[in-house]
């Protein structure tokens, strides 16, 4: 469908030329500047900037919390996606619309309200803190806001696959003597797997770069709740642009690897979906 003759439909060179120019000016050249700046560092300088104790602790917190949050998102995203596709209940349409709220709500607002909810005298903190569960200023708090910001990804990738699942396969499993649990584990879950993996990767990628929501709840405890984007900001505030850039290159490389992975997974899931 996309192979329409260029002589019949107009605007090919104009639209492609404009797209590529705008993409280069706004995205590619600025990102290139980042790598150019990093390449002005010697290997030893680069290593000294990106492999300090503080930086290693920040990577651990960033990637660790993002991994846990994405895993939690898979679990709760499956429950919510399944319920929204298969069952009817009051307020279903409102619940379905609310799933997208984390995409539309500014992350700073999310971080601020989560920080307020879970402090000692907050709405939820007043129950949790006496039980010894500290959310504010801990890694648990970071995971909470990352679960929030990544929540829609898994639900929205799983939902269309569940809707498209044909009834016959499940009926066949049932006729052949499988119980509901076996049908789910052996028939439904394998079909869902590509969508789950894509949703997980998207939520994880989003969580690795997240900044706005995390700074409110993390309390910025060095070696404990400092994430890599925060480290970049504090290097910038000390005017250590080269160190900031070096850490940014580490994050960018991680993002690009993830992006490539997501693309491979999407192709794979299209072939198997």
């Amino acid at each position, binding site marked *: 469908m*996309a*192979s*329409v003759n260029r002589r019949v*439909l*107009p*605007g*090919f060179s104009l*639209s*492609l030329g404009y797209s590529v120019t*705008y*993409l280069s000016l*706004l*995205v590619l050249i*600025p990102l290139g*500047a*980042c790598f150019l700046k990093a390449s002005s560092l010697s290997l030893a300088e680069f290593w000294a900037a990106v492999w300090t104790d503080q930086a290693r602790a920040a990577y651990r917190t960033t990637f660790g919390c993002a991994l846990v949050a994405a895993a939690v998102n898979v679990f*709760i995203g499956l*429950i*919510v996606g399944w*319920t*929204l596709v298969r069952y009817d209940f009051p307020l279903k349409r409102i*619940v379905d*619309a*609310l*799933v*997208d*709220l*984390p*995409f*539309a709500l*500014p992350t*700073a*607002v*999310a971080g*601020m*309200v*989560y920080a*307020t*909810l879970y402090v000692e005298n907050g*709405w*939820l903190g007043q129950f949790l803190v006496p039980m010894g569960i500290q959310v504010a200023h801990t890694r648990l708090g970071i995971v909470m806001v990352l679960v929030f910001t990544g929540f829609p990804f898994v639900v929205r990738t799983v939902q*269309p696959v569940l809707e498209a699942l044909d*009834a016959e396969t*499940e*009926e066949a499993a*049932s*006729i052949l003597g499988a119980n*509901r649990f076996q*049908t789910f584990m052996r028939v439904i879950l394998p079909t869902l797997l590509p969508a789950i993996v894509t949703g997980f990767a998207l939520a994880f990628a989003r969580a690795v*770069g*997240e*900044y*706005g929501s995390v700074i409110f709840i993390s309390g910025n405890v060095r070696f404990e709740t400092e994430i890599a*984007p925060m480290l970049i*900001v504090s290097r910038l505030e000390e005017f250590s*642009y080269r160190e900031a850039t070096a850490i*940014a290159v580490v*994050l*960018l490389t991680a993002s690009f690897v993830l*992006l490539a992975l997501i693309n491979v997974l999407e192709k794979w899931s299209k072939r198997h979906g």
Partner: protein
Amino acid sequence: MADAIENETQTPAPFRRSREDHWLVRGGLTLATLAIIGLLIVVPVVNVFSQALSKGLGTYWHNLTGDADTRHAILLTLTVAPVAVAMNLVFGVAAAWCIARFQFRGRTLLITLIDLPFSVSPVVAGLVFVLLFGAQGYFGPWLREHGYQVIFATPALVLATAFVTFPFVARELIPVLEAIGPDEELAARSLGASGWQMFWRITLPNIKWGVLYGVILCNARAMGEFGAVYVVSGRITGQTDTVPLRVEKLFQDYNTPASFALASVLTLLALVTLFVKVGIERHARPKVEKKE
């Protein structure tokens, strides 16, 4: 619908309910879903408004309009976001046109590159513009010589916001254009319409719901952007603070009611965005089955 009726007649009775879960599973998962949405989304939203209105409606209104710095932040956001959205809208339409209508070398690469800003941390997005236009940046000395201020000023806010919201309109329009197909446009051309006539009378009316949705979503993100803007703004109160930055500053100053008052405006914007989204989907779905 037709499937369901077919199943009714073909599947033997004991297996008809094979897709139905036990009522305990049903109830349990429904309750779990309500609990997840409630704790994760509803409680925080209600909390924003409750904190904002905790000192009464009068104080709420005063918090929003009485402070000159807050007023400036609102005005700045209302300047920066529309410019960034307009830039990305023009790009989105152009990119969707060449990707959905033509086959060319590098098409897949272009699609991948459009998604690139989604996987770049907002902080890094801000940093790259500091490296280009900052005092020690590549173009910094030249800009200073000629008296242009980019970093710590509105142009950088626009650039950083446009970077972060770059993919939204394009991502929304590519599947819509692909689903509609080129038939009507080809017909218009064969009947002698010029390129722009075809665009304004056929293409744009066909994709208007997609455009509207892309713009609304892009705008919500543009107005709420924090990390990238935080880095390039220098956070000069009354000068480069956008609404989210002002919210943070008020919160750090322990002026909780004022910061939540401003946050409630952003939350309202998010809720309106969702509302419009649902409305558009109901409008557009019957015509174009969206494929993600």
